[in-house]
């Protein structure tokens, strides 16, 4: 056996001397549960516990439990917090009601996507912002700049757990003794559990129903154990990547980054230009919104069993037209799936192209997103 093509995406072996990786507060729990660790965005993360495919399937069929404490958490509060936050987000977050969460972007003045974030409006002027791990420091710096004394980095002082899958919400509701089925999609609330307070939001990154919980690390340990006792299965970032890819959720740093704009990435819905409020990138984004993008983030699949990988090239009539930004084998669907920017003429559903897989062309078809939608 000889390595032919290593995964070039976000999941990679820890660099030698991996001591510089940051450690999850719940690391010992993961190790005891049999986790194999991997370096990801500067953190030592559980790659898998029992096996990535089993963990993927459990999340689709029951309830998967993820430690996502690597995500960068910042709170901002005080008079004017909403208006200040609006000055850096593409979405008109003033429209978000208290008790709701919203997906939005930070763009630069050229319209490039600096990060995609989830903002939780806990109170009219109190927000919790969730950044990608790799962008956590930049995100905090951005918020501290607009609210110097009222932006607080809480990545160290809190942990974040996600519980995802068709059984996730009832299971979490039983454990924290709250009827969470009444929580709307993208709703968030603060609950008290065993004398500890936690933020629960009906959000996630798997395409499943479920919740994300932010709470202090010692409480997170208890919550993790209680959820496992109640039947949730620990899931590593290996399955997290295949789950989000099946749901066609982009990963910042792979599918979107500072060189891509929201329109070509299919994220027009996350950009509000109508409210007239100024925000970083607005001028360029308005210009971009008025013309057709030159390329689009397309979703492609293979006919049969195959593994698509980031970096694989895509050809039309033997001419290169794009490169996969993400790709994998879909455990749920049984074929290869991936995302790639393609010139508009090749990006519509039904177009057949060729991906070069280990030197050989394999037919791939452009399909509508998402690859997988949970049964409603």
């Amino acid at each position, binding site marked *: *056996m*000889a*390595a*032919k*093509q*290593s*995964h070039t995406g976000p*999941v990679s072996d820890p660099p030698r001397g991996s001591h510089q990786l940051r450690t999850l507060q719940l690391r010992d729990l993961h190790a005891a549960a049999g986790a194999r660790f991997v370096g990801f965005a500067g953190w030592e993360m559980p*790659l*898998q516990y029992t*096996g*990535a*495919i*089993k963990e993927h399937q459990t999340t689709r069929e029951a309830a998967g439990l993820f430690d996502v404490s690597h995500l960068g958490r910042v709170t901002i509060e005080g008079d004017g917090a909403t208006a200040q936050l609006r000055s850096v987000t593409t979405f008109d977050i003033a429209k978000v009601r208290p008790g709701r969460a919203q997906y939005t972007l930070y763009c630069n003045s050229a319209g490039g996507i600096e990060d995609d974030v989830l903002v939780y409006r806990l109170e009219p002027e109190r927000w919790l912002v969730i950044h990608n791990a790799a962008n956590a420091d930049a995100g905090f710096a951005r918020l501290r700049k607009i609210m110097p004394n009222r932006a607080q980095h809480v990545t160290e002082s809190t942990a974040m757990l996600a519980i995802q899958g068709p059984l996730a919400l009832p299971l979490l509701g039983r454990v924290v003794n709250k009827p969470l089925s009444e929580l709307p999609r993208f709703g968030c609330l603060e609950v008290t559990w065993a004398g500890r307070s936690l933020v629960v939001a009906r959000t996630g990154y798997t395409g499943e129903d479920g919740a994300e919980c932010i709470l202090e690390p010692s409480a997170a340990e208890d919550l993790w154990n209680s959820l496992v006792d109640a039947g949730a299965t620990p899931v590593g970032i*290996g399955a997290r*990547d*295949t789950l989000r890819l099946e749901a066609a959720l982009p990963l910042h740093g792979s599918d979107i980054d500072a060189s891509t704009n929201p329109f070509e990435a299919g994220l027009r819905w996350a950009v509000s230009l109508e409210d007239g409020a100024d925000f970083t990138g607005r001028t360029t984004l308005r210009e971009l919104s008025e013309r057709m993008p030159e390329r689009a983030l397309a979703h492609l699949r293979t006919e049969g*069993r*195959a*593994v698509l*990988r980031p970096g694989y090239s895509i050809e039309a009539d033997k001419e290169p037209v794009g490169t996969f930004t993400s790709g*994998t*084998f879909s*455990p749920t669907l049984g074929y290869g799936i991936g995302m790639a920017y393609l010139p508009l003429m090749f990006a519509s559903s039904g177009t057949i192209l060729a991906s070069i897989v*280990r030197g050989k062309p394999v037919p791939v078809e452009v399909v509508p997103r998402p690859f997988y939608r949970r049964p409603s």
Partner: protein
Amino acid sequence: MEYPSDRLYAETHEWIRMEADIGTVGISYSAQEQLGDVVFVELPDAGTVVTRGDPFGVIESAKAAVDLNSPVSGEVISLNEDLPGAPELVNESPYDRGWMITVRLASPGELDDLLDAAAYAQLSGEV
């Protein structure tokens, strides 16, 4: 047992189990464990001539695509037809139902260059 003693191992982590002049080839427990869940296997047709140390097929997990190198030279007699449709057999049963090909050896002397279970067990720490 992680390394059965009824077969020989290549440094590239394939095993071969001999019956008369026919060898059955697969990959070791530690190799499949290192790869993680196997999702794709490509094997040669019967009749293909394979050469010691050269690739005869490909195996892929989410983590990586790797060549399968033949531990011996000879002709492929049969292949595990179940494997392309059920590559998880490589993880579930690397020494039995996850076998890959059988080969009629051209030069049985090549077996002398392979490792026994104890020698391979030492090496496999380095997979």
